[in-house]
């Protein structure tokens, strides 16, 4: 049999609609998995609240994280999502795929800022500790889990910026779309977790 | 290597004349073995199952026997048809032709679904009924015993004031209902008296209750921890004696209570 390596080389590239389907499927599956983890945390919080074991679930003095910082983070991530969205629309209709890269950079910077503020929120919770009560434990977990997710999105944003700077976005609209799903999911999940900290009794 | 294909029979043929009716043979084998198996189960169950010392335990043992009787034909269905196939249909080495494809048999699949659903429904109803019976049994004045688990021993205190700690034996009066309220001081433990047929976890910060049970046989039995609780989990058992009411009263007084 002859070395038909040229045939193999020609046929190894995936077609564009397959690349797009692949990206979409992957990010949606990843989001499903993450949703399950978020739901586990929220359910845990509600369950412990309902059980109120030995009446020690929440004692006077156990407060939610700083409302002001939470509000700032909420606004910042919404702005970040909006910035990404506008960039994305431009990038998908631009033949070089880069759109207005300043908007992408803004989205990234805002997400990074949200991460930093969230970390500050975590470090200044002001709980007595040793041991933390169940309510405080849930708040701690929700606060830091959100911080990690903002950080993950920021990293995705940074990598996208890299590609945009190197001019490797042509024909890669699906990357903008798929990363967008993750970006918006992070923002929505973050807002949901913030509301949870406000309403959990 | 492989010979040319068989005269493929697209729709699946009925057995040629002269070929034994495999299905009929297998079914007969199945029925015969099932009857033998059911008889064996009924005869051996009282020997295999440990004797129970309460009505509840007896009911549970009966349920186990019933489940085993029902499972005999189910298990034999698989064993017989599989075993028969292996003996009747195996080839010597690599087959030289394909097997005749099956006729589609929707009746078999629907029938199978019907039978298994009916079995399942029966089991659920039986289980619910038995469970309801045991949890709704209530007498106005059971002996209430508080069992506290800790690593790695049980502490008991009776409502009548008797207490027992460490490896001391506890006693229960025969033919009187008793109920245990169980908790733990540290980690999860499991409170079980196999002979009486009761079991419930011991959770820190919670009090859980066993079903009410009436011991019917005197004797010495075991309280065991059945939830892994660390280092000496498998040493965390104590003796429980079921005794006559007079002996029980004597014991209660000796443990600091008033009968």
């Amino acid at each position, binding site marked *: 049999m002859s070395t038909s390596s040229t045939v193999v080389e020609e046929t190894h590239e995936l077609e564009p609609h397959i690349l797009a389907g692949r990206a979409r499927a992957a990010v949606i599956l990843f989001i499903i998995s993450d949703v399950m983890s978020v739901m586990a945390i929220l359910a845990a919080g509600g369950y412990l609240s309902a059980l109120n074991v030995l009446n020690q679930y929440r004692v006077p003095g156990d407060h939610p994280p700083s409302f002001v910082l939470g509000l700032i983070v909420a606004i910042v991530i919404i702005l970040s999502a909006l910035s990404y969205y506008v960039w994305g629309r431009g990038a998908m209709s631009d033949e070089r795929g880069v759109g207005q890269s300043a908007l992408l950079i803004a989205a990234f910077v805002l997400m990074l800022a949200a991460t930093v503020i969230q970390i500050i929120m975590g470090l200044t919770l002001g709980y007595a500790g040793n041991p933390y009560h169940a309510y405080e434990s849930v708040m701690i977990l929700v606060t830091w889990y959100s911080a990690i997710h903002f950080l993950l999105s920021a990293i995705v944003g940074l990598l996208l910026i890299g590609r945009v700077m190197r001019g490797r976005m042509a024909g890669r609209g699906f990357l903008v779309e798929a990363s967008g799903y993750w970006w918006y999911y992070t923002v929505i999940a973050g807002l949901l977790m913030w509301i949870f900290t406000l309403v959990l009794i | 290597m492989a010979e040319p294909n068989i005269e493929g029979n697209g729709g699946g043929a009925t057995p040629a004349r002269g070929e034994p009716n495999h299905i009929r043979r297998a079914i007969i084998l199945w029925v015969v073995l099932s009857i033998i198996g059911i008889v064996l189960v009924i005869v051996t169950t009282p020997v295999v199952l440990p004797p129970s010392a309460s009505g509840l335990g007896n009911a549970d043992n009966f349920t186990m026997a019933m489940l085993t009787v029902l499972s005999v034909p189910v298990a034999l269905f698989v064993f017989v048809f599989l075993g028969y196939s292996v003996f009747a249909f195996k080839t010597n080495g*690599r087959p030289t032709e394909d097997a005749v494809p099956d006729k589609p048999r929707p009746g078999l699949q629907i029938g199978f679904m019907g039978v298994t659903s009916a079995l399942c429904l029966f089991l659920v109803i039986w289980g619910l009924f038995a469970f309801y019976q045991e949890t709704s049994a209530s007498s106005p004045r059971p002996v209430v015993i508080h069992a506290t688990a800790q690593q790695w021993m049980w502490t008991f205190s009776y409502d009548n004031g008797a207490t027992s700690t460490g490896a001391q034996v506890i006693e229960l009066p025969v033919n009187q209902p008793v109920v245990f309220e169980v908790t733990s001081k540290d980690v999860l433990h499991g409170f079980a008296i196999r002979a009486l047929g009761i079991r419930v976890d011991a959770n820190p910060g919670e009090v859980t209750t066993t079903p009410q049970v009436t011991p019917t046989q005197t004797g010495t039995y075991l309280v065991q921890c059945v939830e892994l609780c660390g280092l000496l989990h498998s040493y965390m058992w104590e003796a429980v004696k079921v005794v006559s009411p007079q002996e029980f009263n004597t014991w209660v007084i000796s443990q600091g209570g008033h009968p």
Partner: protein
Amino acid sequence: MSEATQVRRSSLISNLFPSVVSGIILGVIGAVVCGLVVGALVQDNQDAAVVAAYTGWTIFFFIGIGAFNGVWKWGFARRDPTHAEELQLAGQNQGLWRYFRFTTDHKVVGMQYLATVLFLFFIGSMGAFMIRLEQSVPGAIFFDPSTYNTIVGMHGIIMIVSAIIMISGPFGNFILPIMIGARDMAFPRLNALSYWLLFSGLPIFLSTLFLGGFPTGWTGYAPLSVQELTPGMDAYCFLIIIFALSTMVAAMNILTTVLVLRTKGMTWGRLPIFVWGVVLSVLLGLTAFPSFMVSQIMVLMDRVFQTSFFLAASGGSNWLYEHLFWFMGHPEVYVIALPSMAAAAEMAAVFSRKALFGRRMMLSGLIGIAIISFLVWGHHLYTSGANTPLDAPYMLDTELISIPTGFFFLGIIGTIWRGKLWMTPSLLFVCGMLVNFVIGGITGIYLADLPTDEILHGGMFVTAHFHFTLVGSMVFGFFGAFYYWFPKMVGKRLNPMLAKLHFWLFEIGFLGTFLSLFYAGLLGEPRWSANVAPSYAVPNLIASLFAILIAASVFTAVYNVIITLRSGEAAEANEWGGKTLEWTVPTPVPLENFEHLPVVTSTPYDYGTPSLSEDTEGALSPLPSPSQPQAQAEG
């Protein structure tokens, strides 16, 4: 002369870096540095130092093995990788070194998984034999209770981890992409990542032996797992988090692959049932494992940061742990079961030379199992006291799951019935699987039933039940698949007599051991007994004696593999006459699998129907059906 030595030296360096060697070296450095730094910053908190060390190990291991290179390049490289670079990453021309690197070729990853699974089964078995040794006589004779509890826990977790990956890892990676007519998985780099995540978790887990072991058994129940006994517990929690990440990445990869990379003509209706089994299994894993991961994050937080998710004194509850754990724990056994059952179906068809009986019924069985498996976890909490208005519905759906399971096994029996049975070792293992599953499945009913669970929960009856289902059925399915696909993966023929000896020793030993343990459970013996009470001595001794046969079977299989690797006969490309696509490619399977991607025209189960093909003159002629696969090569 000196040029030659120079060339040799540099190729050794380029072989070693990046590779698993550099990964381990950097990982160890990272672990030591992070552990010492945190240990110095936070006094009196051994758990913090240990967890920091594990985190350092993981991050630096992946730096060392070159996993982050791809991430960096994705964003900041000047150009996309060329085809030649992709092939280089896939291990082209690297000989055996490619197995020790972050290699992306799905066949390499499949072999890595296979080697790891066999290794884990081996050490897990050694743990089992130690358990049986201790339980053969009453009293804690051979091991002190702390060591025994650690052995039990390690045996449990090692075996569970192996069972979860045993089919999807080796065969889901090596065989599945070829089976659907693809050149590789959807995300080759993530594929390598999922394997190396698993690998990186193993030294973490084994370090528990030097940190005092852990007392909780494989379920890691809190609050026992939160007690400040030894830092050995942290190894368990961290392994689970890493393993959950590995599983979720692999699940996403497999699902995406089957969604978008099926070749032309490979509709969902023509997909081999093995692919369906793996797809459903990883879908379960993707959705169920996050709660497991969250539970372990919470345990680590309780241990390191003194939170109180599970400590009653500050408002926590062990019931929370039980719910989080079993929400994963129940679908998890179907993660284990579905690929094994589906592989058994493939083998049943090939070795009976007959189409699957009731293929759609079997498929709906798999789907039914997958859906119901999410609704039954409460049966692990029947006796927890965590009530119980839901106990009755849980009993209902636990019993219900037996119906779709029955469909599936009816299908396998119907396939075998009136087939032309080629009694290969694989078919023997399939038969063993059916026999054992009937026993395992039926005893599950005893446990599903509320009143009988009262007397059986937490006892050896449960242990025997899950060994019958997970080991007697699913691990048997693994060995069947191992003997089935080994000729394709390795290119050599395993000795069939030794393989059959492996089966018989395993089956007889297994039945003897675990039927005895059923009896011990009926008598009331609790699980996790370092100290077996004298009343249970006889069944335990019998079980331990039969376990010797299982040990003999393990060594028989190991011997078979070793002599085959050294001097085995070469296998044919289509060793068994199968019809799925992997049997149409040559052995060894070339990089990128297919010269031309195949076009599929039928299911791979059309045995007994004459099939036609054009020869070079254009005339139609019947081809021998056993060697006619489901696809016609294009052009």
